[in-house]
């Protein structure tokens, strides 16, 4: 379990902190508070109960602290005693932390107070203790007790962090021009105080610039397997090897915080147009958000209902109670009932274990066989002999450039998986890393034409083809790839070249984006959400400097590749008018044009082919419209004569073809007219009863109106097309 922590912020709220300096848009106080809020809300996001924060206001108008009997403690107020911060505390602090009208109040006294508060709160318990002093260093300071307080801070094992607005910091590279003399003196005193306490002394800009560097969360290692790594059959063979090991996660994808679903409490808030009210939530200065903690939300829960097909029931379905149901499995379309007891028969009982199946060559391994997150395996932590044994195994694998294939059953009764074990040897650590491998059933046997040659249908092999790169393109690509090498593009702390985009430097954009946005919203209820921190999108583009270097090579690739974007219009345009031919090249079009095969009237049985063939043989708009109307009529008949939903699939298919063809022929209006007509029939119940389900399917299959975005020949706007989808008539 992580250690308990207590932090006390001493925040200078003097009148001078309410001013803006050095071209910043925010007041010194607001600016400095971004850091404090970030600290507090980061802890809140983690939801830990053992991270406590206290806040002390320095240079407040009034005085409110337990040591105020002593006049040295004037203009110091305790805003919050150390405790876990929750949303109401944030709001309370917001109210209190505002620039005062005074500039007096002694930072050193505030430190004494904070140390006192820390002692009261943490006593002798195990705590990580921190005191932050945040000030612009402008006011008067009483340095009499400074040595004692330094001693006290050291004695109590408190980390002191002095963060100053516009303090000079050569290391960070900041120097304030025309610095006030008092401030300069104060800075020097505070700096030596920090040094005496082994604390931190930094300028505000420095710490604020680090806010956006995400902190990764440590998760306590929990073993997913404890057992024996065996080679051979331990029960039946004298020669079998067995090593006592433990397996821990190496990679587990961190998930962002998840939103839960709520609805507005029925007795509060607007009820009429709740969709719109949700727009205003949290924006537009929704003060209710601040003042009313639960803001009228109540959680939305799932309420599953169960139905079973029943030809007797009027709707064809009968509702059943969960408690009356048994479990089973589907085998194709057959449903098998399996009793609770019988369920066990389906299980493939196995004893837990990690058994080596054999060894494979590292250099022949296909990296894309990696199927899962990875784990690491170490020898049992209390077994020295196992450690020695595993070490010899790891080193032997390493020297031989070999991986082990093993059969893993994590727990008694679990299903076996095949894992690959790779040796990992680092300075302090040795372990095996494991990853799951595919079984026979996990491979999908898809075939793809080779990339480096073309084989024609007649079996001829081509090496020159528009699908194959020319030598020019090959060379240009090779040079470009080499010029874009980032394995030494970054600089380390000493300025030596090192790996750019190393795995340890890349943070999960979604995890931190969600968390930072929440933190932002917790303290800023009205402002627009800021864009993601640049560190989260840093690796979304190649590094600028590198691209510039690589530009000449890229130009050569572009020239040799001659890639052309297919415009959306081209894509939609009716393909070359020739009728597709079978392998023999026979002119089926001519065959179809023969009077005996000629189609003018579309039959319901063979509607789609006949429709397509009719269109293929005509350019005449009247014929096209007529064909479209015929198909539409057939689709309507499918619906009309449908028993339940039995004919809907065919109707959808006909409509889909109709829509596609009309779009390609640049006649979206024909389709739109047909659909408007059809919708009316459906909604008015003219197609053999309630056919709302059919309309639902039209929506689900995205067979709405063709709008201007899809076809420039359409007179329907995007909004109109969207509005049209509701099952209501205008």
């Amino acid at each position, binding site marked *: 379990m992580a250690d308990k922590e207590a932090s006390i912020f001493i925040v200078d709220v003097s009148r001078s902190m309410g001013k803006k300096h050095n071209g910043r848009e925010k007041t010194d106080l607001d600016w400095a508070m971004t850091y404090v809020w970030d600290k507090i809300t980061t802890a809140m996001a983690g939801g830990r109960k053992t991270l406590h924060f206290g806040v002390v206001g320095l240079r407040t108008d009034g005085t409110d602290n337990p040591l105020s009997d002593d006049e040295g403690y004037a203009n110091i107020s305790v805003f919050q005693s150390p405790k876990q911060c929750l949303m109401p505390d944030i709001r309370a602090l917001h109210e209190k932390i505002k620039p005062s009208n005074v500039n007096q109040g002694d930072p050193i006294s505030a430190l004494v107070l904070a140390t006192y508060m820390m002692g009261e709160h943490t006593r002798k318990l195990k705590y990580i203790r921190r005191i932050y002093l945040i000030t612009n260093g402008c006011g008067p300071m009483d340095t009499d007790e400074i040595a004692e307080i330094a001693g006290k801070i050291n004695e109590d094992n408190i980390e002191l962090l002095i963060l100053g607005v516009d303090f000079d910091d050569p290391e960070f590279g900041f120097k304030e021009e025309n610095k006030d003399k008092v401030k300069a003196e104060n800075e020097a005193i505070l700096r030596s105080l920090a040094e005496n306490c082994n604390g931190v002394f930094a300028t505000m800009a420095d710490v604020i610039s680090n806010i956006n560097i995400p902190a990764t969360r440590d998760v306590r290692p929990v*073993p997913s397997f404890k057992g024996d790594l065996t080679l051979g*059959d331990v029960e039946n063979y004298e020669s079998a090897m067995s090593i006592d090991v433990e397996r821990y996660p190496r990679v587990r994808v961190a998930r962002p915080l998840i939103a839960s679903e709520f609805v507005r409490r029925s007795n509060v808030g607007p009820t009429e147009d709740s969709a719109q009210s949700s727009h205003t939530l949290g*924006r537009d200065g929704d003060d209710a958000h601040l003042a009313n903690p639960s803001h009228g939300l109540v959680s939305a829960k799932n309420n599953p209902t169960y*139905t079973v097909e029943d030809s007797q029931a009027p709707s064809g379905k009968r509702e059943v109670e969960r408690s009356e149901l048994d479990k089973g499995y589907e085998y194709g379309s057959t449903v098998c009932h399996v009793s609770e007891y019988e369920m066990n028969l389906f299980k493939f009982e196995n004893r837990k274990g990690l058994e080596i199946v054999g060894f494979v060559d590292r250099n022949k391994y296909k990296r894309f066989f990696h199927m899962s997150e990875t784990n690491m395996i170490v020898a049992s932590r209390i077994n020295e002999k196992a450690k020695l044994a595993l070490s010899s195994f790891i080193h032997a694998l390493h020297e031989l450039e070999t991986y082990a294939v093993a*059969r893993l059953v994590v727990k008694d009764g679990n299903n076996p998986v095949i894992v690959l074990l790779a040796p990992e040897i680092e300075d302090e650590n040795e372990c095996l890393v494991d990853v799951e491998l595919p079984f026979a059933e996990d491979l999908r046997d898809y075939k793809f034409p080779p990339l480096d040659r073309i084989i024609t249908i007649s*079996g001829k092999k081509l090496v020159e083809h528009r699908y194959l790169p020319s030598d020019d393109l090959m060379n240009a690509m090779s040079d470009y790839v080499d010029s874009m090498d980032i394995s030494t593009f970054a600089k380390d702390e000493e300025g030596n070249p090192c790996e750019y985009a190393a795995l340890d430097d890349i943070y999960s954009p979604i995890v931190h984006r969600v968390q930072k946005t*929440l933190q932002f919203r917790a303290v800023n209820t009205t402002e627009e959400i800021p864009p993601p921190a640049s560190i989260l999108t840093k690796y979304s583009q190649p590094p600028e400097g590198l691209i510039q270097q690589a530009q000449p090579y890229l130009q050569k690739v572009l020239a040799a590749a001659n890639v*052309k974007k297919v415009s959306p219009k081209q894509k939609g345009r009716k393909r070359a008018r020739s009728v597709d031919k079978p392998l023999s090249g026979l002119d089926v079009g001519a065959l179809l044009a023969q009077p005996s095969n000629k189609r003018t009237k579309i039959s319901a049985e063979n509607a789609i082919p006949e429709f397509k063939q009719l269109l293929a043989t005509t350019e005449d708009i009247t014929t096209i419209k007529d064909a479209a109307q015929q198909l539409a009529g057939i689709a309507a008949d499918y619906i009309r004569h449908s028993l339940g939903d039995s004919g809907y*699939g065919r109707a959808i298919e006909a409509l889909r073809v109709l829509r596609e063809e009309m779009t390609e022929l640049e006649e979206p209006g024909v389709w739109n007219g047909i659909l408007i007509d059809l919708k009316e029939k459906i909604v008015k119940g003219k197609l053999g009863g309630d056919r709302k389900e059919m309309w639902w399917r039209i929506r689900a299959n995205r067979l709405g109106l063709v709008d201007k975005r899809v076809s420039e020949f359409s007179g329907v706007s995007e909004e109109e097309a969207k509005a049209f989808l509701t099952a209501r008539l205008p």
Partner: protein
Amino acid sequence: MAEPSDRNRLDEDEGSDEEEEVDDSGYKTVKDAVLFAIDISDSMLRKPPPSDSKKADRDSPASAALKCAYQLMQQRIISNPSDMMGVLLFGTRKTKFHDEHESSKVAYPHCYLLTDLDVPSASDVKRLRNLVEDEEESQELLVPSDEPVSMASVLFCANQIFATKAPNFSSRRLFLVTDNDDPHGGDKAARSSATVRAKDLYDLGVVIELFPISRQEHRFDREKFYDDIVYSTSISDLDAPAPLVPDNQELKSGDGISLLQSLLSSINSKATPRRAVFSLPFEIGPGLRISVKGYILLKRQQPRRTCYVDVSGEKPKLVQGKSAKIADDTGREVDKAEIVKAFKFGGETISFTKEDLAAIRNFGDPIIRIIGFKPLSYLPFWANTRSATFIYPSETDYIGSNRVFSALQQKLQRDQIMGLAWFIARRNATPVIAAIIPSEEELGERGEQIMPGGLWVVPLPFADDKRKNPETTVVRTTDDLTDKMRVVIEQLQLPKGVYDPKKYPNPSLQWFYKVLQAYALEEELPPEDTKSATDKTVPRYRQIDKRAGAHIISWGESLEEEHSGQRGTKRGSDGPDLKLAKRTKTSAPDAPIDEEMRRNFEKGSINKLTVAALKAWAEKKHLDTSGKKADLVDRIEDYFEHK
């Protein structure tokens, strides 16, 4: 296309489930329907001459085809449970269409619909099996008609089956098995009407896959008839099944492969239609974009999930689950539009508008964008989060994609380089950083493709995803010990030094479906002892012993020596000694040994041990094992203090 009720799946909490896996489920449900059409004629029914050779054919072509259909049906129930399949015999004396087709005015003489096109049921499987295994049944049904069957009517029959039973399926395929390369000879009218019906099928979007069978005395000649019937699927249309077993390759027995085997392998390669999981721009450099499609070639197959069944009626019925949202306070049903998403934060909730939520999750348009290249050796073994996705170029959005992709793939393959890419798989999918690694095309013995050449997108873990190693100490091996282990490892290489997944069927999955099939077909359950017999993942103990046994024993002896030696020099050997086990088992007894515990006591580090270890030890000493860890530690420390 999204059907309103995807069979039996509970309408899972869509919104809150924000998993963003690259998975075919979310992208598009592409369904496949296969109609198996088998020619029944005298020559198709003729059995090969008896032979002593073990490998010789025993099956007539028709029976081989039926066996294939039978196997394919079982296989698809497992791998593609929502896909459809049907079996049509043509040229039979009997005629049969849909059982109860209301508009049966069109008859298809000598077409016998054995099992209708649908998600197969247990009875369909039985039906097919009986025909394969039961002589009597097959003799009754598999009788060729006296007059020739019209191919036009066969094709139109298939047309009607597809049009009515599998409307709107994006993949519809007719598998045609025949040995007759010229069904209509000189009958021009019959030929041309067959050609027209074939065009109808093509326009309906049905692909004809021909499985031509050659006989010893007669080579199947496609040019005679079938080249007018079959259409090529163009190479750029990657969603169509690729004709990779070259289309002009005929099937025959010989070369030690039976007709059944060659038919099986040919059909297997087409068993699943290729389905793209995404179609994305691939940006190799600023201004250099091509289009690629992603395919899932590796995916863990899971046993079916249980479903709810209603057993009140005669037969168990599938129960459909539907989930509505209700407000927790009043229990009233709420509309989707009313739902507000909010995060728990600081003891309260923070809510966002739908637009804000979408904006927060939005990191730009879907893309695979290369941001640089590194040697493949920079990809650590541990850096993996899930299975990789295969990508292959497509000309749909950018003309020239193939050649550019090919140039890149060949360069990466030749120089063993990987690309590093910013990868957003779908609209609103969360971005990941992925390694783009090349794979070389791999061909089998007969020139068939085993692994396609292309690129793989390997999603990498973020800094947030990497866990720290547990705290432990290392005991380093010695050269002698390592050398002895090397010998062991060298003895036990898998064939060719590679892991071939095809050799390792998933034992629990196999067992599950064996039992399920027995249930569905109302047969006897497979005996328990067949469980392990068919498990190919169990190590071959006897071989391990034979090949490496002596070396392991030698290693074990060195280990004992080394271990006692290290203890001797480092810590003295005052503690109770580990017994020299005959087997080189290093497992500590379940509990830590006394010496270990004493050492921890002296170092004050008993609390570093696990609760399980503490409990086990305490139990051994007959101490109370109840309470929290701190209590256990106290008790054990007590034990040593008072000893």
